[in-house]
């Protein structure tokens, strides 16, 4: 077992790992941060998306030891300092961008990565960027609407078809 240290949601943390310990297991089992969900465990669904050194990755497909020392942000690190929902999280709530909520941590992390690199995306850009995140409930319309709203755009004209 090897001790792996990272900065997760602004705190320096450590947990013991095997070579095969995935980043998703490190976060969930090593650190108890179970907000990162494991859906498919084959990098298809995106539920486990987190940020590693500022970019979105699927934590089920990265070994913890490969990102030792990295700066990681998970869904637990997305709320505002006072515990209130961040703009993106609030937009998902306001626009009903979730139903069962299983994909939501990954959707929020992917959306945050999109808006960090493209602060005012078009509807098409949102849909294209989120193609690695699967939602089986919403039909995506309200997720797209939430992301557009979080970017400060008027979504009155975006139909929830």
């Amino acid at each position, binding site marked *: 077992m090897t001790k792996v240290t990272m900065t997760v949601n602004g705190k320096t943390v450590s947990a013991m790992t095997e070579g*095969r310990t995935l980043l998703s297991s490190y976060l969930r089992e090593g650190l108890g941060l179970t907000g990162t969900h494991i859906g498919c465990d084959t990098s298809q669904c995106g539920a486990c998306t987190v940020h590693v050194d500022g970019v979105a990755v699927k934590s089920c497909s990265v070994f913890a030891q*490969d990102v030792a020392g990295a700066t990681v942000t998970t869904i637990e690190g997305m709320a505002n300092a006072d515990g209130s929902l961040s703009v993106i999280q609030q937009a998902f709530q306001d626009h009903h961008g979730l139903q069962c909520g299983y994909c939501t941590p990954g959707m929020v992390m992917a959306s945050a990565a*999109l808006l960090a690199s493209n602060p005012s995306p078009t509807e098409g850009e949102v849909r294209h960027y989120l193609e690695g995140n699967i939602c089986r409930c919403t039909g995506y319309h309200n997720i797209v609407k939430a992301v557009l709203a979080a970017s400060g755009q008027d979504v009155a004209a975006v139909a929830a078809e």
Partner: protein
Amino acid sequence: MHNFDFVKPASVADAVAALAAEGAQALSGGMTLLPTMKQRLAAPEVLVSLTGIAELRGVSGRAGASVTIGGATTHATVAAEAKAFYPALAALAGQIGDPAVRNRGTIGGSLANNDPSACYPSAALASGATITTNQRDIAAEDYFQGMFATALGEGEIITAVTFPIPEKAAYIKFAQPASRFALVGVFVAKYADGVRVAVTGASNDGVFRWAEGEAALSGNFNGSALEGLSVPSDGMIADLHGTAAYRAHLVKVLTKRAVAAAM
């Protein structure tokens, strides 16, 4: 998956030394290797990560001449940084998988794996790229040796790939919507001495050049030059996503589209 020892060297020399261990396997972005290990189709005893080696990362080039990409450069970086030198190559990189996959997956990993439906092999073959390893330079023509087979030897690491920049080029992928791999993908590149057409996703032998299409387009770089040609379905991949005949048909259709889109 089975457990293994994980090592993360900081130099190519240290990586080569680590790969000499019994049962050692190189790991780049891991976008194919991790799922393969989860299915226990691979069970290395030592995994040698190439993600901590700075000399393997980066994009450099000379406008109009060539662009060189470090072996462990991610698709996302190629999409962003190769654009100024070789827009069609950057566009290809920007269509691989999804954003999270592009943030991990690397050009060297893709070429070393040589998946028959991967995108990069078509760009390398159509561009007459040179694959540079820690031991030698390998011409793309000699590098691809069939499905999942390459000229790489034991302990050989792709350190860089150099693409001569064409006058015009485009890659058109007919994506398999679930995996986002190419059901068929065609890369067309027009150079001063002729046109090269490389096809991925279609053949049981992996990436190949469509010689007949190249000859027609070298005389007349217009989709109409392909009228009357047909691609034989012998040896094409057939699976639940498409028959051999369907894939053969797509080769010509996508070649036409690539010629029309060439920039």
